[in-house]
């Protein structure tokens, strides 16, 4: 079994673990403590990086949906499912870390802000995606329906954001100039910016590593399924 473990994956595992360690150290030791918010601002580095990873997962799912419908290659179905699972996990981390930050800064765990609402609706879309897959036994049909729903779901995300954005927002925009009316906005020092970019990079590596693991798992599961069928014959 050990022979089958891809060499590239071993290297990627090690690189990702190393990056995560460095990123954590940078967040706590290198980046300065924010003047107004204090330590709780540290959540920002992993909050944005997790949400970014989540979006990346859903994007991967939508793209592999299109590729699946074009090629009917079950490989893309495995990749799509992997994207959704990883995306849901990191989106949830994004929501939870956001709440931890919002409690002291906004004085509430939750507010009906466009970003928060859109992110949570997105999470619900992909929960529905998993339920749809669970309800269908034939693997080929499951893959087709999953692909269609991943595409439809991903398209609605920006529209959901737009439809709610017409209300006022209090979510700070750190990148690209912040709106002074938002609560908890701050300007990044160079060290903060470097740490932020580094944690985005780290999380992208984490995403790639997990995706590889999950796709490999999916393929192995497929193989087990085929062997079981062969055994029954």
């Amino acid at each position, binding site marked *: 079994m050990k022979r089958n473990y891809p060499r590239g994956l071993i290297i990627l595992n090690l690189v990702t673990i190393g990056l995560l360690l460095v990123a954590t150290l940078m967040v706590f030791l290198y980046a300065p403590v924010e003047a107004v918010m204090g330590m709780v601002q540290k959540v920002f580095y992993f909050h944005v990086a997790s949400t970014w990873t989540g979006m990346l997962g859903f994007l991967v799912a939508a793209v592999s949906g299109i590729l699946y419908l074009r090629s009917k290659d079950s490989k893309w179905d495995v990749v799509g499912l992997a994207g959704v699972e990883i995306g849901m996990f990191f989106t949830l981390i994004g929501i939870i870390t956001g709440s931890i930050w919002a409690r002291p800064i906004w004085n509430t765990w939750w507010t009906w802000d466009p970003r928060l609402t859109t992110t949570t609706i997105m999470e*619900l879309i992909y929960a529905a995606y998993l*339920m*749809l897959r669970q309800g*269908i036994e034939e693997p080929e049909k499951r893959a087709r*329906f999953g692909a269609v*729903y991943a595409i439809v779901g991903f398209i609605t995300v920006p*529209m959901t954001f737009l*439809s709610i954005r*017409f209300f006022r927002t209090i979510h700070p925009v750190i990148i690209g100039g912040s709106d002074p009316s938002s609560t908890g906005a701050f300007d990044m020092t160079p060290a903060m910016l470097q740490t932020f970019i580094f944690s985005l990079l780290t999380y992208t590596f984490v995403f790639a590593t997990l995706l590889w693991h999950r796709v490999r798992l999916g393929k192995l599961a497929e193989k087990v399924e085929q062997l079981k069928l062969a055994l029954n014959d």
Partner: protein
Amino acid sequence: MKPRKGSFVRSMLAIIWKDLAAELRSRELVSAMLVFALLVIFIFNFALELDAQARATVTAGVLWVTFTFAGTIGLNRSMAVEKDRGCLDGLLLAPVDRSAIYFGKMLSNLAFMLMMAVIILPVYSLFYNVNLFNPALVLVIFLGSLGYVTVGTLLSSMAVQARTRDILLPILLFPVVLPLVVAAVKASTVVLAGQPLGDALAYLNLMIVYDVIFIAVAFMVFDFVVEE
């Protein structure tokens, strides 16, 4: 067999005619939607204490929640009939364009939605002594229902093929139609407050964009949903 020229529109019309004729004889779909819609309004009346003051702000919301909930009943039923009696297989065997089947089902679902709205609006007006006869509101309801049945028909044709079909449609549909429903509620609120339609332009634009995008998407992916 290659579909003949002009057969797209004819097969689409044939499906609409079939659905409307079946409905005219059985009256089971629209009547179920109507009774359900009235019950939802009654529950809202007591849940929200719909006095004159509250109604000014929540009428649009009540109407759209009613349409959305009653709509899923119609969508589920309209597809389940095809699936259960093997009609869908028959339709798929016919040498017609698959998207003609989709647009036929979609337009008859739209007809059912609008029929329900045509009855619910006067009833609501009568109950609460408000005038809902407003051409701008009709436009908003049309745009909202169009987007709703566009996505709804696509998703319900997937949901009926799943083991968990009775519970699946609302779970699949609601998160995806959320932007449309939000825009429809906001646009209706503006219209019902007596403001000019121009004030709701952002929401109307969003609804039109939603409708156009999903008509195109459904056109492209419906083949994959009914493929055997």
